[in-house]
C-alpha cells in the first residue's frame, strides 16, 4: 500500500466533489470529521480532521500528581476507562518501583477484562449499525454491557469514568454482592456470544458487506503501528497480555484469536472471540482470587526518582501506552498517552481511497475509534 495521490475523476463521471462526513454524523462515533473527495460513490481522497474534543490532557497532566492524573485516563478512552487507569498505574508503578498486592492484581485483571467485554460489545454493536442493521445488534450487545457497567457502579460508584485503579492497587475491594453477580454474568456470556455469532456471523448481507472490505495485510498492519484487534484481525498473533504479561496474566490460560484475511469481518470476529477469551480469564481470576489487601500504601504525593518509564497494557483498542518522564517532582515532567484510536487511523486514508462510501463507513467502524482518546 503506497501513498496515493488524488486521482481526478475521469471525464465521464464528472469531477470529484467534497463530502463532509461529520463532525456530526451517525457513523463517526463522536465529533470526528472526514473530508472526502468523491467521484460518484467512490472516494478519491480523504482528509481526517480531529481535535474537536481536544482538552490538552498531556499539558494538564504536567501540573498534577500521578494519582490526580488517573481521572484523565477515564476521559481519554471513555469506553475503556479501566484500561486507561491500569496503563497509567503500571507506568507510574514502574517509575516509582511500587509493588502491587496479589489481590489487587487479580482484581485489576477482572476489571480490565470486564472493560474489554463492554468495549467490544460497543465496538461490534456500532459496527453492525454502521453496516445498516437498525440498532438491533447494538441494543442486544448493550444488554451485556449494562450488566458490566452495573458491576462497575457497584464497585466504584461510576459506570463510565471509573477512576478505579490506584498506584499500588485498586481503590476499593468489590462489595459482597459483586461476586455472585459477576459469577452469573460469566456463566451467561458464552451463550450470549454464541447468540451474536449465530445472528451475524453467517448473515449473508453482513458477510457481503464486511468480507473483503477494508483489507489490511499483516505487513501493513505492523508497519502502520496498528495494535489490538485491528492487528490481530490481519493475522498477527500479538497480544501484550502474552508478550509482556502484567498483573499476572502469565498465570491465566487463554488464547489469542487471529483473523486470516484482515478485512472488516475478521476484525469483528476477533473481537467476538476475545469476549470469549476474556470470559475465560475472568473465570480463572475469580476462582483463584487471593485474599489480602487490595492496595499498597503509597505517599499521596509520589515523587519518583528522575527517569522515564513506558508502561503499556493491551486495551480493547490496542496498546494503551503511557510514556512518563519524571524529574523528581510530584508531577510528571512529561506525560504522553499513546492513543491506539488515533494510531489505528494511520492507514485510514489509504484504506478509504478507492473504496465506496458505504465500505469506508464500515471500515471506519471496524477500526473502532473513540474520539475522546484520539483528541485527548
Amino acid at each position, binding site marked *: 500500500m503506497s501513498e496515493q495521490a488524488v486521482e481526478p475523476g475521469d471525464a465521464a463521471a464528472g469531477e470529484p*466533489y467534497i463530502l463532509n462526513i461529520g463532525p456530526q454524523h451517525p*457513523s463517526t462515533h463522536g465529533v470526528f470529521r472526514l473530508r472526502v473527495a468523491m467521484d460518484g460513490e467512490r472516494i478519491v481522497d480523504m482528509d481526517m480532521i480531529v481535535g474537536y474534543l481536544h482538552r490538552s490532557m498531556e499539558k494538564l497532566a504536567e501540573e498534577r500528581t500521578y494519582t490526580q492524573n488517573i481521572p484523565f485516563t477515564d476521559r481519554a478512552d471513555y469506553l475503556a476507562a479501566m484500561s486507561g487507569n491500569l496503563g497509567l498505574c503500571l507506568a507510574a508503578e514502574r517509575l516509582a518501583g511500587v509493588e502491587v498486592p496479589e489481590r489487587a492484581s487479580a482484581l485489576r485483571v477482572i476489571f480490565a477484562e470486564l472493560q474489554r467485554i463492554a468495549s467490544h460489545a460497543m465496538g461490534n454493536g456500532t459496527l453492525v449499525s454502521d453496516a445498516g442493521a437498525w440498532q438491533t445488534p447494538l441494543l442486544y450487545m448493550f444488554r451485556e454491557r449494562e450488566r458490566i457497567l452495573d458491576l462497575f457502579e457497584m464497585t466504584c460508584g461510576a459506570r463510565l469514568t471509573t477512576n478505579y485503579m490506584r498506584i499500588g492497587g485498586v481503590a476499593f475491594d468489590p462489595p459482597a454482592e459483586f461476586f455472585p453477580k459477576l459469577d452469573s454474568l460469566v456463566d451467561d456470556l458464552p451463550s450470549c456470544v454464541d447468540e451474536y455469532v449465530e445472528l451475524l456471523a453467517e448473515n449473508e448481507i*453482513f458477510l457481503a458487506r*464486511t468480507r473483503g*472490505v477494508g483489507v489490511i495485510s499483516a505487513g501493513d498492519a505492523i508497519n502502520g503501528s496498528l495494535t489490538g484487534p485491528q492487528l490481530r484481525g490481519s493475522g498477527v*498473533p500479538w497480544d501484550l497480555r502474552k508478550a509482556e504479561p502484567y498483573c499476572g496474566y502469565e498465570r491465566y490460560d487463554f*488464547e489469542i484469536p487471529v483473523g486470516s484475511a484482515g478485512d472488516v469481518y475478521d476484525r469483528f470476529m476477533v473481537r467476538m472471540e476475545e469476549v470469549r477469551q476474556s470470559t475465560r480469564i475472568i473465570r480463572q481470576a475469580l476462582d483463584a482470587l487471593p485474599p489480602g489487601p487490595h492496595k499498597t500504601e503509597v505517599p499521596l504525593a509520589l515523587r519518583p526518582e528522575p527517569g522515564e518509564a513506558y508502561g503499556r497494557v493491551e486495551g480493547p483498542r490496542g496498546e494503551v501506552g503511557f510514556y512518563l518522564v519524571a524529574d523528581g517532582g510530584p508531577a510528571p515532567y512529561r506525560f504522553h498517552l499513546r492513543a491506539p484510536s488515533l494510531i489505528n487511523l494511520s492507514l485510514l486514508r489509504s484504506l478509504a481511497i478507492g473504496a*465506496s462510501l458505504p465500505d469506508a463507513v464500515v471500515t471506519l467502524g471496524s477500526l473502532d475509534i473513540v474520539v475522546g482518546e484520539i483528541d485527548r
Partner: protein
Amino acid sequence: MSARSALGRLLALGPLRLAALAAALALAAAANAVVGYVVIDGRLDGEWYDLRDLGFAVARLRAELDAVAPPALSYWVTALVGVGGILGFLGLVLLLGSWVERRLLARFQIRRGPNRVGPFGLLQPLADALKLMQKEVLVPRGADRLLYAVPPIAVFIPAVLAWGPVPWAPNMTYLDINVGVLYVIAVSSLAVLALFMAGWASNNHYALLGAMRTVAMMVSYEIPVSLALLSVVLVTGTLQLSEIVLWQEQHRLWLGLLLPVAFLTFFFSSTAEINRTPNDIAEAESEIVAGYHTEYSGMKAGLFIAIELGNAVVLGALVATMFLGGWSLFGLETWIPPYLVLAAKTGAVYFVLVWLRGTLPRFRLDQLMGFAWKYLIPISIANVGVVAVEAAILVRLDAPGIVPLSAFTLLNIALAVACARFAMPEPSGGPSAGRGASHAPVLTTVLGGLRASERLRSAP
C-alpha cells in the same frame, strides 16, 4: 415460560390488561358468531345493513339518491364516500402504524418502545406530529425553492392513488378498473421523480447521493416488479385486481404458493422500491444521514417519514391482494368481514417488513444493482416463460382442477428453491468474500509478528 406470560411479554401488557384484551376478543368472536348465524339463515345477504361488505350499503345509497336526484349527484356522493373511506383508513394507518412499528421494533430490540403518551403510548404519533408541525421549516440556502416545496406532498400522491384498485370485499372496490395491475405499476413509478427532486433541490451532497441512489434503485427494480406481476396476469388472465382475487378464491389457491418466484421477487424488489430494510440504501442513515430528505425539517420531514410507513402498508395490501388471496380466506370470508381479512393480511406483510427492519443489515448499492440485473431480472424472465407455458395449459383445461394446479404449485416451489439454492450469485464483496464461508478466527498461543503470521497462514 407459559404461553400466557409469553403473550403478555410480547404485548408488553400487564395481566389485567391482557385479560381485558382477551375478553374483548372473545366478545367480538361471539358477536361474529351471532352474525354468522343470521348470515347462514340468509336474511342478511346483500342487504344494506350487511356489514360484511360495505359495497351493499353504498349501492343502496346510490339507488336511493338516483330516485330523487340527477345521476351525477349519486356519482359524486359515492366517489366522495370512497375517497373519504380510503383517506380515513390511510390516516388511521399512518397514526397507528408508526406506533405499531416503533413498538414492534422495541420488542425486537429488547426495549419497551413508546409508552408514555396516552394509553400504551398510543397517542405518541399524534404528539410527534404536533411537535413536527410546530418546528420551523428551514429552506437551505441555495435550494431550489419550487422543487424543494413540491416533493413532500408529491410523494403522498402515489401512495394514496395505489389504494384505488385494491378490492376490500367482492363489492367493495373503489376503482375497479380493468387495467388495475398496470395502474399500480404506473402510479408507483411516479414516486421516483418526487424523491429525485427532493434530493436535487436540497443543494446538499448527501441528499444528491440519496437521490441518485433512489433513481438507480427504483428504475432497476421496477423491471422485476413488472415481470413478477406479469406472471400473475398470465395465470389469472386479467389485469383487474378484483378478478385476481376472485381467481384465487375460486381455485382455493393463493398465487404466492403457485408463483413463489414471482411472489418473492415482488416482495424483495418492492422493499427496494419503498426504501425498506435491507434495501434502505437511499436513506442509509449510517452513510448518507437521511438521503434525499436530509435537509428537510419540521412537518416536511414528517411527511417523508410518514410516507415510508404509508408505502409499507400499501405494499402489504398489494402483496396480500396479488399473492395472498386478498379478501378471501378459504370460505371463512362469509363469517369474517372480508375487509378485515385483507387488513389482517396487510398487517401480516407489514409485520414481516418491520421484522426485516429489526433484523437485517443493509446491502451496498452496487451489490443491490448487481443482484437486480444479474440475478433477479434473468430469473424473472425465465419464470415468466415457465408460467406462460403453465398458463397456456391451464387455459386449455376447461376447469383446472386440483391435480394440475397442485402439480404446477409443487413444480414452481421446486424451481424457486432451486433458484435460491443453486443460482444465487456470490455476494460481490471482493476476492475473499464467499457465501456461507464464515471463518472463525484461529486461536493460538504462539506469539509473534509477520513471520508468526505467515506460519499461521501456511498451517491448515
